[in-house]
C-alpha cells in the first residue's frame, strides 16, 4: 500500500531530509516514551553487559542492544553474542552447562522441578 502511494506521488527513494527527520523522530520518541535519556540508556547497557560477562565471555564487539517499539510500546532488543568457552573440549551444550553449575543463574534454573523431570525419565 505504502509502495503504491509512493509510486503515485512519484516519491524518490533517494534519502532526503524527510528520512532524516524520520530517523531523528524515532530516536527521540523512544527515549521520551521510557523517560530515559540516551546517557542513562548507555549506562544501563554497560550494566547489563557487566552482569552477563560475570557468567559468560561476551563478544563485546558484536553486541547490539537497542530500543525499538512495537506499536506504541517501547521494547529493549539485545543481541549479545558469546565467545566459545575457552578451556576444555568443545563439547555440546549439555556438558557446557554442567561445567558451571555453581553459578547462581543455573542454580535458580535447577530448582525448578519440571526442568529436571525430563532428564530423570
Amino acid at each position, binding site marked *: 500500500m*505504502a509502495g*503504491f*502511494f509512493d*509510486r*503515485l*506521488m*512519484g*516519491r*524518490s*527513494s*533517494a*534519502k*532526503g*531530509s*524527510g*528520512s532524516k*527527520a*524520520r530517523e*531523528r*523522530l*524515532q530516536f*527521540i*520518541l523512544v527515549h*521520551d*516514551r521510557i523517560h530515559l535519556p540516551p546517557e542513562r540508556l548507555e549506562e544501563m547497557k554497560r550494566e547489563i553487559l557487566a552482569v552477563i560477562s560475570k557468567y559468560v565471555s561476551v563478544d563485546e564487539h558484536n553486541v547490539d542492544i537497542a530500543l525499538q*517499539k512495537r*506499536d*506504541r510500546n517501547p521494547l529493549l532488543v539485545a543481541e549479545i553474542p558469546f565467545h566459545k568457552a575457552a578451556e576444555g573440549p568443545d563439547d555440546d551444550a549439555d556438558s557446557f552447562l554442567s561445567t558451571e553449575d555453581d553459578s547462581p543463574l543455573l542454580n535458580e534454573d535447577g530448582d525448578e522441578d519440571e526442568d529436571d523431570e525430563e532428564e530423570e525419565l
Partner: protein
Amino acid sequence: MGVNAGVTTSGSRTPAPVKRARVVTITSGKGGVGKTTTTANIGVALAKLNQRVTLIDADIGLRNLDIIMGLENRIVYDLVDVVEGRCKLRQAMIKHKQLPELYLIPSAQTRDKTAVSPADMIQLTNQLRKEMDFIIIDCPAGIERGFRNAIAPADDVLIVTNPEVSAVRDADRIIGLLEAENKGPAKLILNRVKGDMVRKGEMLSAEDVTDILAIKIIGIVPEDDTVVSSSNAGTPLALSENSRAGVAFQNIARRLMGETVPFMPLDDSPNFFKRIARLFASGQ
C-alpha cells in the same frame, strides 16, 4: 462511550443526561500548528452538513476562535461569564451569520486561567449535549490547566500536528497523556503538508507520521495560502468548495460523521495526473 451512550433505562438512580452530542476536542501539544483553524473549519463543515454545532474556545486569555470565525464584534458574554454565573449559557452562544445551526462560545480575553475547571467544562457540555449534534472544543497549546479543561468532557480527541520533528514529538507526548487519562485512542490530523516536498523526500509523509505515532489518521490538510486569507477575512475556508484545504476539512467532517472518504491526492502538479494515467495504463 460515544454517541447516544447516555440513554438511560428508567431506573433506580438519578437519570444521567441524554448524551446526544459528541464532544470532540482539538488539541496538539505544540502551539501554532492549526488547532483553531481546524476547529473553525470542521465546525463550519459539520454545520453545512446540517449538524447542530457549538464551538467552544477553551484558550482562556488568548481569545482567537472568534476572530477566525468573524464573530469578534458580537461578543457580549464569554465562557468565564457562564461558569461564574454572570449569564445564562444561551446568552454566551453567538450564532453564526450564514449557518443558523452553528454557535460559538468565546473564551475570556484577560482573565485568570484557573477561572474554569475540568468539572465546569463537563457540566457546561452536558447542558449543551441535549440540543447539539457536535460540540467542538479548541484546546490551548501546552499540557496545563487549559488542556485538562478541554479534554475532560471529550468523547473524541483529534490531535493536530505538522510534518515536523518538534510538532510530531509533542503530539506523541499528548497521545501518551491521553492514554493515561483513558481518553484514547485519539486520531490524527496532519496539517500543512506540502505535496511537492513530500514527493521529493524532503518532508515527513502522512505514512511516516502515522507509522511513528501508531495512531489512526482522520485528515491530511495541505499547506494552502487561502487559509491565511480566509482567516484575515473571518470566513473559514470550508464555507466554500474551492480550496484544497477547505475540501480537506470538509472530508474530516464527513469522516467524523462515519462516512468513508478517500484521502485526496496532495499533489496537484500536472505531472501528478500523468503519473496516475501511467499507473493505470501499466495495469497497476
